[in-house]
Each structure stands twice: as structure tokens, then as C-alpha cells.
């Protein structure tokens, strides 16, 4: 019998499929398509201490097989989330992964403390947002900062912590190791690649924020390479994402070393993508006689078979 369930981060997940932070709101808007409980977990939009309005002007452009976004962490603030969104989310019977973004190390600690008292299931440290001026990418490119933040949040919470890494770095393995060494239970990769687009008629950058984060199928080869490299060098599980739309994409990431996968831009391309991926994974495992997802994780590293 094929069993998609997987134990990760001391949690029992129905399946290895989640949604990527920022593409699914707080779980309520996709309910018209399918019940959130079918997902392995829900990952929320990035949350900050205070409410944020996000960036001005155009926030999205479509590019070849990808999109650039520059939302800039618009969110109602952690307290509103805990009071207004979390109870509803938890009542759906889904595991809730909460993505947090601090402007300072202290803010990360504060965010961790506030979540510790709630029933969220996992904390994802967003050390990689390319669309904010403070924190975000500035932290994510520094192995030292990544280590420090991981360690300090680790001290204020017993919940599993996953560190979300940026691909905009020379050496993602070094940063991944630093997170692992400082107590991360897992890693999420990748966040978006920094990019931009120019309107040749107005002759100006299209996005209000000039820069945006590139996501979608275009970046899949880059994401896959990073998952593959990081898997070779760490022992903690990886949540892989970046351009996953079909179950075939998901299988590639699992074979590269992801224990779990996230669907981001894929939700826009097909609102049912996560559900179709779950069904497709089952079919694939049937054909290749895998019983558990764990048997597939990292298989691309083994010798020719």
C-alpha cells in the first residue's frame, strides 16, 4: 500500500506537500477549490511584528515561464494573525507552518516568543525576502547572521524551526550548514531570485520597487541544483520549492533530496496544482513500487541504478 504520510520535524504529515509562503494567503482563499486539510501543511504569508502595507506601485510582472513579484511583506502583523486568522486555520484540521520576517535579530526573537504560546506547528524563518529594505535578504546572505538568528529563536521556542534560504548567494551550502549547526530542524529552499523588468515604452523599471523576486518554472533548474547540493551537506530535512507545478516537478525535487515540497507560483498557474501533485505522487509511487516517500528522498545521489 502506498502511504504518502511522512514524519518530519516531529510532526506527522498526511503527505509531503505544502504551499509556498506568500502564495496562499492564510489558507482561506483557496478553500473554494479544495479543503486545506488535504495538504500536508499550510504555510502562511510572511508575518512581521507590526502590520506592513508592502510596496507601492506595480507588484507583479509575468516573465518567460516565471513571475517577478515585489509585494514587500504586506501583512496584518503577528498579533492580528494570531487572534484572527490562526484559530480559523487550525479549526480546518491542517498543520500550520508560520513564515516570519524580522527587521532585526530582536524582532525575530520577539516573533518566536509570541508564536511559542500559540498552537502553530512550525516556524519558518524567512531570511531571504528580496523585497524589503531591512532584514530579509540582508540577513540571508550572511552565514553569521543566519546562524545567530537561528540560535536565538531556537532559545525561545520548542517548536520546530525551519530556515528559509535565499538563492542569491555564492555558496548556499555554507549558509545551510550554519543554520543546521545552530539548531534548525529543517531548511526551506529556495526563496525567489532577484530580478527586474523594464518597460521599453516608458523606459522605466516596471515594478514600483524596481527589483522583484523571480519565481515559477523558470527557476526550477536553479532550485533543484541547490536542493541537491544542500542535501549532500546537511542531515536535517529540506522543504524544496521553486517552480513546482506538476507531480513530475515534485518528484525531481524529492529525488534531489527534498523530504517535502512547496507549491508557490504553481497555485496561480493551476489552483488545483497541490492536489494534482498529491495524486500524481501516488501514481508515480505505484508505478515505481515505492511504499513510503522516504524511500525516494535523495535517490538521485545514489549510483546509477
Amino acid at each position, binding site marked *: 500500500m502506498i502511504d504518502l504520510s511522512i514524519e518530519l520535524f516531529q510532526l506527522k504529515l498526511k503527505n509531503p506537500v505544502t504551499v509556498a509562503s506568500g502564495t496562499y494567503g492564510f489558507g482561506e*482563499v483557496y478553500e473554494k477549490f479544495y479543503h486545506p486539510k488535504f495538504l500536508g501543511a499550510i504555510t502562511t504569508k510572511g508575518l512581521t511584528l507590526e502590520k506592513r502595507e*508592502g510596496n507601492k506601485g506595480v507588484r*507583479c510582472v509575468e516573465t518567460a515561464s516565471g513571475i517577478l*513579484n515585489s509585494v514587500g511583506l504586506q501583512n496584518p502583523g503577528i498579533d492580528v494573525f494570531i487572534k484572527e486568522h490562526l484559530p480559523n486555520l487550525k479549526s480546518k484540521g491542517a498543520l500550520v507552518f508560520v513564515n516570519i520576517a524580522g527587521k532585526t535579530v530582536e524582532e525575530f526573537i520577539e516573533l518566536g516568543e509570541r508564536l511559542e504560546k500559540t498552537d502553530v506547528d512550525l516556524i519558518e524563518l524567512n531570511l531571504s525576502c528580496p523585497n524589503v529594505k531591512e532584514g530579509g535578504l540582508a540577513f540571508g546572505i550572511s552565514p553569521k547572521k543566519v546562524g545567530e538568528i537561528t540560535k536565538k529563536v531556537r532559545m525561545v521556542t520548542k517548536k520546530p524551526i525551519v530556515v528559509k534560504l535565499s538563492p542569491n548567494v555564492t555558496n548556499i551550502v555554507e549558509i545551510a550548514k550554519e543554520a543546521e549547526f545552530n539548531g534548525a530542524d529543517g531548511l526551506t529552499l529556495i526563496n525567489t531570485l532577484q530580478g527586474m523588468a523594464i518597460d521599453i515604452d516608458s523606459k522605466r523599471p516596471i515594478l514600483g520597487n524596481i527589483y522583484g523576486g523571480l519565481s515559477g*518554472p523558470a527557476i526550477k533548474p536553479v532550485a533543484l541544483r541547490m536542493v541537491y547540493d544542500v542535501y549532500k551537506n546537511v542531515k536535517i530535512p529540506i522543504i524544496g520549492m521553486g517552480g513546482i507545478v506538476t507531480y513530475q516537478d515534485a518528484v525531481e525535487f524529492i529525488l534531489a533530496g527534498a523530504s517535502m515540497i512547496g507549491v508557490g507560483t504553481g497555485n*496561480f498557474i493551476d489552483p488545483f496544482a497541490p492536489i494534482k501533485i498529491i495524486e500524481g505522487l501516488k501514481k508515480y509511487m505505484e508505478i515505481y513500487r515505492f511504499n513510503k516517500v522516504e524511500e525516494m528522498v535523495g535517490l538521485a545521489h545514489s549510483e546509477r541504478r
Partner: protein
Amino acid sequence: MDYKGKVISKVMLTSNVFQLTIKVNGKIDYKIGQFVNLYCPNKILPRPISIAGGDGEYLTFLIKIVGEGTRYLGGLARGDEVKLVGPLGKGFTVEGTGNKKVAIVGGGIGIAPLLPLTGVKFKEVKYYFGFKEKAYALENIAKEYPLTVTLDKDGQNIVDIFAKDLERESFDFVYFCGPQIMLKKLQNILLKKGIKGELSTEAKMACGVGGCLVCTCATVDGYKRVCKDGPVFSVGEVVFDD
């Protein structure tokens, strides 16, 4: 929420505006002003398009070709399939307007979401539909829709014409849609006159369902999602750029 549509007809109304009628494998119970996401296999994001008419089993759209997505849609022919998701967004308020004198003001392709209002009973209704290009207008649009169309006069656009009428005539409620600059001008006029109304605005979208926050517009209550909290907003809600 997600459907397959079969193209029943595609009529070019001008060189770059066409009317598309599809039959849906189901029935879309829509409110006037709502839109659907039409998927274009040559693009990764769907294209938001207002429902311009139809009973829900049949749907009509009025589409202007401006880029690759709409070009794909313009290439559809009778019998082709198109994937869609909807209805999406908030529609116009049409409850309790039976005793109101309304104006419906549309600019260019912005008339699309306003067209189904032609089926609503108002105490009195006046249409102000303006088009830049001649060909765009009267002959073809009016042929297809049961409308009296007020055309752009030289040098004056539809907002100017409406503003002039406002000097000697009054309205209880105004529905409008069109380019940003028109929305801004008209909203200012209505605010000054104290006339209520609703407008439908646009923003570049990704998810179309409220999940990604790329489609926000500034409002008096902070940023709101055009796809979910709009595209219809009350007069005075949206804060337009300078």
C-alpha cells in the same frame, strides 16, 4: 470554481477588440461586475476578464488585444476549449436601485463589466460610453448591445460630456469603469457633487483569488486586493496616484 468553456462564437468588433461567447460545462452564478480568470496556454498566469453578459451557462466577454495573452484569446475559434476559473471578485451593488436615477459611464474596453447593467431595472438610466477611436464604437458595439451610446466629441472625452450634463441634471448613483485617469477624474467630480457610485478598477494580478497580494490598490483603509476586495469599490474608497 473551475470550468471548461467551449467557444460558441468570436466576433471581431474592431481591429483589436472582439466579443467572445463561450458555453461553460456548468453554470456560473455571477454578479454583475465580477470577472473570471481565463487561462492562456502560452502564458503562465491567467488573464482576468470581466463577465460582459450571458446567463451563466453561456458567457460573453469583450476583450481588447494588448499583449500575448489577449492575442491568444483573440485567436480562439468556434469549438476551441478554454479553461476558466470564476466568478471572482466583488460585483456592483444593484440591490435597492430600482427607485434610483443612475448614470453608467464607461471608457473604452472599460464598458465590458458595465454591459450586464443593461439588464437591470432602474427608475431611470443614462449611458455614457466613450471611445477614443471611431471604429471602436457605435456601429459595431451598438449593433451587438441594446444601448444608446454617447460618443466622444472632438476634444472632449466621456467624462467631460458627463460633467457638462451634471451641470443641469442630477443622478442618484453612478457606475463607472475605464482607464485609471478617467476613474480618478470622475471620482473627484462625484465626491465634489456628493453623488454616490461604484467604480471597477484594474491591477496586474497573479492568483486572482486573494492569496498573493500583488494586485493591491491604495484605499482610504490602506491597501486592498483588487481581485478579492474589488474590483468594484465605492466612490471615495480608492486613492489614485498623482
